[in-house]
């Protein structure tokens, strides 16, 4: 199985396009999108179209559901609320219907995919500590669990025999038998780990390799679009700050 995993595109067309262009040499692969295709960025419709054309899997993130009107956005911070409202107004009914029909999680053999956490996917829990990951491993049977939502890439390996977990800080690893893996694939459109480059994960289970890849893109163009559409300037600033 060859997977290219992307998440949290957040309407950032420049980042998405640069990612797909950079990943061309990795083909063939199954493109798996873990949600939050829209929200914050200025190209929600174009992102839905591009992902819709190419992806084998499209999950719904909390922003997608808020834009579709399926979850209230009162719990969102003011900037997120504003961008949800703007996004709603800038999508057609068809696009909103598409978002409302997206699944919350997906399982394929050894692989589990969710936007935030496979535990109670509608609650969109943040998985941030080893304790949280232990809970995830305890509740699913699959060897691999892929999530997004935090915009912070992470890789945790669990030794199945001992139950011991380890945070892996290298961007590329060889998969080992007897280990389970929890992977947060980071964000394409709004990374928050102090690295503004779009983040994706490539998995080739035959070759036994998993790798985080970073792609630089024309941030200025994305920023200009955000400002041109009157969205909060903070959304433009944070693309460069990567926070």
């Amino acid at each position, binding site marked *: 199985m060859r997977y290219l995993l992307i998440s949290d595109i957040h309407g950032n067309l420049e980042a998405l396009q640069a990612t797909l262009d950079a990943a061309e040499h990795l083909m063939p692969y199954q493109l798996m999108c873990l949600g939050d295709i829209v929200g914050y960025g200025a190209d929600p419709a174009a992102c839905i179209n591009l992902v819709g054309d190419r992806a084998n899997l499209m999950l719904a993130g909390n922003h997608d559901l808020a834009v579709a009107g399926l979850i209230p956005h009162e719990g969102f911070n003011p900037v997120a609320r504003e961008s949800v409202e703007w996004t709603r107004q800038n999508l057609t009914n068809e696009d909103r219907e598409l978002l409302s029909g997206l699944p919350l999680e997906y399982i394929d053999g050894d692989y589990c995919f969710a936007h935030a956490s496979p535990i109670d996917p509608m609650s969109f829990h943040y998985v*941030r*500590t*080893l*304790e949280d990951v232990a809970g995830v491993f305890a509740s699913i049977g699959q060897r691999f669990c892929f999530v997004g939502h*935090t915009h*912070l*890439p*992470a890789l*945790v390996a669990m030794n199945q025999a001992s139950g011991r*977990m*380890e*945070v892996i*800080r290298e961007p590329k690893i060889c998969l080992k038998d007897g280990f389970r893996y929890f992977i*947060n694939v980071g964000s394409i459109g709004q990374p*928050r*780990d*102090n*690295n503004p480059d779009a983040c994706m994960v490539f998995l080739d289970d035959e070759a036994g390799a998993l790798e985080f890849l970073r792609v630089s893109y024309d941030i200025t163009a994305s920023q200009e679009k955000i400002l041109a559409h009157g969205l909060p300037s903070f959304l433009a600033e944070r693309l460069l700050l*990567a*926070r």
Partner: protein
Amino acid sequence: MRTIIPCNRLLESHEEFSQDKLDEVMHHALTASTAQPSCVEVYDQGEQRFVFFRERQLYAAGVVRGGQFENTSIRDYLLGTSRMNFPAIACYELNSAILHALLILFQKKPALRVLTSLVDLDQVLDQIEDDGKSCIVSAARDNFLAMLRYERGRATALCHELSVSVPRESSFRDEFLVKIYTITAAQPLTISLFEDLLVTYAEDARTIPEDFANRFDSLYLSKPPIVSLQFKGREVDHWVFDRPRLNIGRTPDNDVVIDNLAVSRLHAVLEEEKGCYFVRDCDSLNGTVVNGQKVGRTRLEDGDTISIGKHSIVFRRQGGRDVPAGESVAGFDQTMIIAPESVPPVMPAVPTARPEAAPQSTTRDAAMSPTDPSKNPCLVMRTEFGDRVIEMRNDRLVIGNDMEADVAIEGMFIAREHAEIVRENGRVLLRKLGGLRRVRVDGHAVREAELKNHSEIRIASDLFVFEE
């Protein structure tokens, strides 16, 4: 990218982070701090957060992102670490000089910041030595950090460990330069020069008592309060007060909407400030009443009832404690001035083996901690954080805008030697020496005045009381 800070030694480190583990490590660091200053670092891919301990004091905190140092409150440290992404924890033993130098990096703006490719570093150091300056020179790039400390033109080095072997007979300056030139061969470093060496403690710094066994977040963080809107004794709605303000008014754009003509469009606001909560009337027509009294702006305590028109808003805490506003931290100085004599000479970190720490000086410098009252007259500096006692050990005490002054004060038009207090013929006199700000004794501007017991001296915004 992780900037490795200099330290005496690593006390402990943990890959597995949890709030309980962090609390445990912080307790260890607190205990260790009775001997030497210590710090706890929580780091993930994106940032490193530090909290510094000194003599059972939670002294200061900061965050490093991409090599950039930023000062924070201790509360920010606790909140920030709880939001990090699979972080790890490390605890270090420091010494006073390392602590001071790190606080400089977090708190001060450098007088000079250049790339090594643009400056002759030898020349910069020569100039410092010729001028007899006291300053800190830092060299940084990516994850490398080295600091060289000068005291009156003499060098004491605090260096990051590097795999370069240097003969032991070399000077601190030479070792610093060798380390830098090795690294800078690939890419230039940023050299910063810090001349302002007055550091201070965090706005929410605290001394922790010996019997403290609780969690630190119980001291600094509390659950957000609940605000309950009631009419005729029954609750109509409630909100969790977890943002900086809640607007109360008649119109629907408010957070708390009271649809009643007695209520103004924007009637009042609830505000959160550093863990304390306030209600402020917004020039409303009928006023805002708290516990039966009309108020402009007042602090809210658990159970307070705000009356607006015919409605009541009850403010309820959920546990935890307010961070007391302006709590004085007993025994603290407002600023930690490391006078050169009080710093034990620090051996540079040689990669093959960590050297023994140099013997500690046994007497404490008056600038580091308040002394007990003694036969010598004292100058008590009153600050909002507590009193600082400066003992007059010699016949002369200098007050000025100079790090080496006996009493260092800041402000515009304050001279390096602004005033002196001298003992002459059994009398104690205060004399103005320079600068433009007036010196007042007991309210009167003077050039020279005799000081009596409890005389009040004021220079710019600083107040001192003379005690015989």
